């Protein structure tokens, strides 16, 4: 059971996130970057499936040099090896280009039975990348999993969305994205952190992954950002101390605002 886990380094949601003025892409210098929390759950699920079914866990990311830290974190949790697609030409790639590029990188890993990912990153919140990668690879996508089970060549998932829970199944190989409730990720042990330093990390450029430079990057993107405006910070309005009539005062405010 060979598993690829897609991970992403994102700006910490506890830091201020900015877009650059020059080309409207993420200002990576302004924010602290971390391994996206949902990815830790994807790595954890991969490790649990590996414990039950054997095989190898490979973590894959696409991003600038600093994304190596996200890979190391996953390796210190217990993943076996990592592949890092890093090339200046990838800067500004959109969702479709990213899905195609990731699919190419997954293709460099041998005998993949399962691709695991988080269901939605905290920065782009596209919420569709795993399904798009599946589309490129011609695989089924079982997304928003709160439980994953492998039974021979069948994968069964409890999919939880706003609409409720759906019990779904498909044949392997497949793409599975995990939701918040899937598991509690382990903390890397000291031993794990030390071992991670010796684990193989392959850094690929576009040519190594067989990606045509004309298919990626801001200049070839399938969408374009016309303008970006920081929202004027919301200023606080009226603040009162409750003098026993707080509820009535709110009701009066709502009436004045024509909200009730």
């Amino acid at each position, binding site marked *: 059971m060979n598993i690829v886990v897609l991970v992403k380094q994102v700006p910490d*949601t*506890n830091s*201020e*996130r900015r*877009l650059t003025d020059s080309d409207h892409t993420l200002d990576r210098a302004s924010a602290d970057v971390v391994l996206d929390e949902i990815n830790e759950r994807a790595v954890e699920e991969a490790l649990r499936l590996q414990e039950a079914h054997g095989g190898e866990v490979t973590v894959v990311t696409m991003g600038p040099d600093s994304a190596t830290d996200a890979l190391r974190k996953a390796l210190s949790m217990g993943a076996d090896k990592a592949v890092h697609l890093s090339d200046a030409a990838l800067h500004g790639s*959109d*969702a*479709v280009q990213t*899905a195609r590029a990731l699919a190419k990188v997954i293709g460099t890993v041998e005998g993949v039975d399962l691709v695991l990912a988080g269901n939605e990153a905290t*920065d*782009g*919140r*596209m*919420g*569709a990348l795993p*399904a*798009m990668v*599946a*589309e490129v690879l*011609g*695989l*089924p*996508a*079982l*997304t928003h999993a709160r439980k994953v089970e492998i039974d021979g060549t069948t994968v069964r998932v409890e999919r939880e*969305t*706003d*609409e*409720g829970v*759906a*019990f*779904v199944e498909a*044949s392997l190989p497949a793409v599975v994205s995990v939701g918040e*409730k899937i598991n509690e990720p382990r903390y890397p042990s000291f031993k794990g952190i030390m071992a991670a330093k010796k684990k193989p990390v392959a850094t690929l450029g576009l040519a190594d992954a067989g990606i045509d430079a004309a298919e990626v990057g801001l200049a070839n*993107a*399938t*969408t*374009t*950002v*016309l*303008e*970006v405006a920081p*929202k004027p910070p*919301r200023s*606080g*309005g*009226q*603040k*009162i*101390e*409750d003098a026993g009539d*707080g*509820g009535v005062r*709110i*009701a009066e*405010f709502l*009436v004045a*605002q024509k*909200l*009730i």
Partner: protein
Amino acid sequence: MSEVLVLVDHVDGEVKKVTFELLTAARRLGEPAAVVVGAPGSAAKAKDALARHGAAAVYVAESDEAADLLVTPKVDVLAALVGSAAPAAVLVAATAEGKEVAGRLAVRVGSGVLADAVDLDGEGVATQSVFGGAYTVKARVTTGVPVISLRPGAVEAEESAGAAAEKTVEVPAVDPARAVRVTRREPVTGGDRPELAEASVVVSGGRGVGSADNFAIVEKLADVLGGAVGASRAAVDSGYYPHQFQVGQTGKTVAPQLYVALGISGAIQHRAGMQTSKTIVAVNKDPEAPIFEIADFGVVGDLFQVAPQLTEEIGKRKG
């Protein structure tokens, strides 16, 4: 005028409100054509509502299998229609499934895709609200037929008579290697409350609510306002309220007309999920709580006093 394909969000022909919002936005770009993918009989049930909201045409793609498979039958049908109808754009609801349909469709037909738009103009320029509303971005698709998912509740649905001329289309045969079969469903039983993402009023509780039982106070206020109930991550992590109601960076993003925060401090992660709400009211006993920095009306006080009083007062005014 070119057609604009709108994927109908429905449960067995029961059309969701977001579909009417999509049809309204579609009218700005061209002639709305609703696409119903589902079990046989779905379109017949949906047709009247679609006609009332301006659908000039209704593409009917029905099969037993279409209802039992995730995402791909919808992508297959839309991809075939993109080929045959040459639409000006394809609009889909930015729900869990809709976003995937949009993403897969864009890959399939070689288009660009914009996710979770909060507005769309007649030139096909989509407005997106990113980083929890910290930035407003205007973007457009530059390659292929634009595929855009629209956030539920962002565009106000307007009625408009449409011919809703039915056109039957085939659901393409499914590739078993790609299919994801649904063996059983357990729909959310949210009772009579509106869905969090679609509600025009949201009342949320935080750590300050103190217990699962105390959430009844939050629910009572939500009910008298006809709103949905939300919860902060702290409240969800403490087990006070189920995860699917979490509002914030790792939960849902809501933008209702009125957001009431009870006992929520307003950490940046929570604000990211609600700060684009039209009007924000906060009750918190800590005068320094960051939620007050963004609240239009804040009460420093005990939510156990203030919220029930507010519930009662609204009840009185409603008579």
